């Protein structure tokens, strides 16, 4: 039996549920793998797990928010033959990565300012949180399985990969970034393939009743499909909601926020630029009040924008 460990960092549990819900596929895997650690599902103490000198496959979920999570992730990773980074928090920082523009104390203050702070003692003896990062910032994994939680394409590929690894001892085909190497837009059931996409303006979701057939961008609604890797079966779009970009960039290392800003700029009112002119275009773009939250919802921590912020504040 091979040893499989699932190690959570700062998680929501969505990746746990995604894995645990695989039922039969998971049972297939358990013919080859013994789960030596998975705190949500298996009752094994961390101290016992840490006695193992090596494990075959480590699946890491979640981001890194404390010194201890970082230490544990590094320690366990160094004993693992294959390291899988599962879910967009682990791979890209995910939604909590939106906080990476701030210092931990500012994040704490967002709560403290709203409640009754009973005692103020500057000599805090509690361990301090470290600046939030992705697992991929501290360890170099062998397999990246993005998504929030990982979509069906990614999970299928991951299970195939792990089964093959159990049978052959080799990681083949060696895919670093799971999912299909194309944009979600490419195979979108709504994609108007024959024409170039034209956004009639910018419409926030509260302004419209979403049409359940038409390309969201053509409704003026921001959809991250063009800049997002195909990791799912268009689940949100089929539920009549635009893609929010949980799959991350089409290629590892690309800044999907910036590439999508580019696509929106290309598509916005292309048919009317010469009549609405700069003022008209600016008026529409000004309706986007949160560029970071729209374009970088899951990937801010890995972006050039994050690096620029760090440069700006001198870190």
């Amino acid at each position, binding site marked *: 039996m091979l040893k499989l460990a699932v190690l959570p960092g700062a998680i929501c549990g969505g990746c746990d549920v995604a894995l645990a819900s695989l039922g039969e596929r998971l049972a297939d895997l358990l013919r080859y793998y013994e789960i030596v650690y998975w705190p949500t599902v298996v009752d094994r103490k961390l101290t016992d797990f840490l006695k193992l000198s090596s494990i075959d496959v480590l699946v890491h979920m979640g981001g890194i928010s404390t010194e201890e999570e970082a230490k544990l992730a590094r320690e366990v990773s160094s004993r693992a033959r294959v390291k899988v980074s599962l879910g967009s928090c682990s791979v890209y920082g995910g939604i909590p990565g939106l906080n990476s*523009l701030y210092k931990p104390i500012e994040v704490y203050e967002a709560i403290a300012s709203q409640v009754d702070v009973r005692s103020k003692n500057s000599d805090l003896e509690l361990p301090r949180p470290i600046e939030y990062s992705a697992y991929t910032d501290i360890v170099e994994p062998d397999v990246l399985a993005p998504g929030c939680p990982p979509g069906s394409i990614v999970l299928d590929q991951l299970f195939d990969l792990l089964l093959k690894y159990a049978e052959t001892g080799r990681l083949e085909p060696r895919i670093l970034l799971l999912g299909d190497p194309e944009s979600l837009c490419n195979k979108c059931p709504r994609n108007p393939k024959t024409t170039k996409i034209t956004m009639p303006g910018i419409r926030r979701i509260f302004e419209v009743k979403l049409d359940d057939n038409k390309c969201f961008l053509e409704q003026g609604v921001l959809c991250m499909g063009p800049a997002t890797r195909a990791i799912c079966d268009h689940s949100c779009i089929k539920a009549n909601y635009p893609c929010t970009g949980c799959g991350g960039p089409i290629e590892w290392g690309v*800044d999907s926020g*910036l*590439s999508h*800003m*580019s696509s*929106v*700029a*290309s598509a*916005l009112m*292309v048919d009317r*630029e*010469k009549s609405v*002119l*700069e003022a008209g*275009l*600016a008026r529409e*773009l*000004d309706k*986007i009040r*949160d*560029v*970071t939250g729209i*374009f970088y919802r899951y990937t801010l921590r890995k972006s*050039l*924008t994050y*690096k*620029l*912020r760090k*440069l*700006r*504040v*001198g*870190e």
Partner: protein
Amino acid sequence: MSWKPKIVAFFCKWCAGAAAETAGVMRLRYDPSVTPVIVPCTGRVTPSMILSAFLNGADGVLIGGCHTPNDCHYVAGNFKAFKRVQLVKKLLEEIGVEPERLRLEWISATEAPKLVRVVNEFTEEIRKLGPLGGKRA
């Protein structure tokens, strides 16, 4: 005062780029802190090029393109540049970088004096804003 601003200028070869050449021929002086990068069209300048310029030492980024609505050689590259710059300016503001560090100007091939004025104005503005990076003061 040891610090000098560094500015990267993306100039469209059909207009601002040509104006920069003309300025040279006319012996018009402009601030040497500007490093011009000639591009085929401002529509070629991506948000990631702008951020890379900042990350690689630029304190300001200037983009010079053809006048709207009808001067772009590729129909609407200048409008595309305008929309991108608008979005990037918003992004910069959200992360605490002055949006004034990014400037877009329409400068035709015949407007060498305008080019010089814009470059000098922009350099002065960046000088006032100071270095982009927190520690390079």
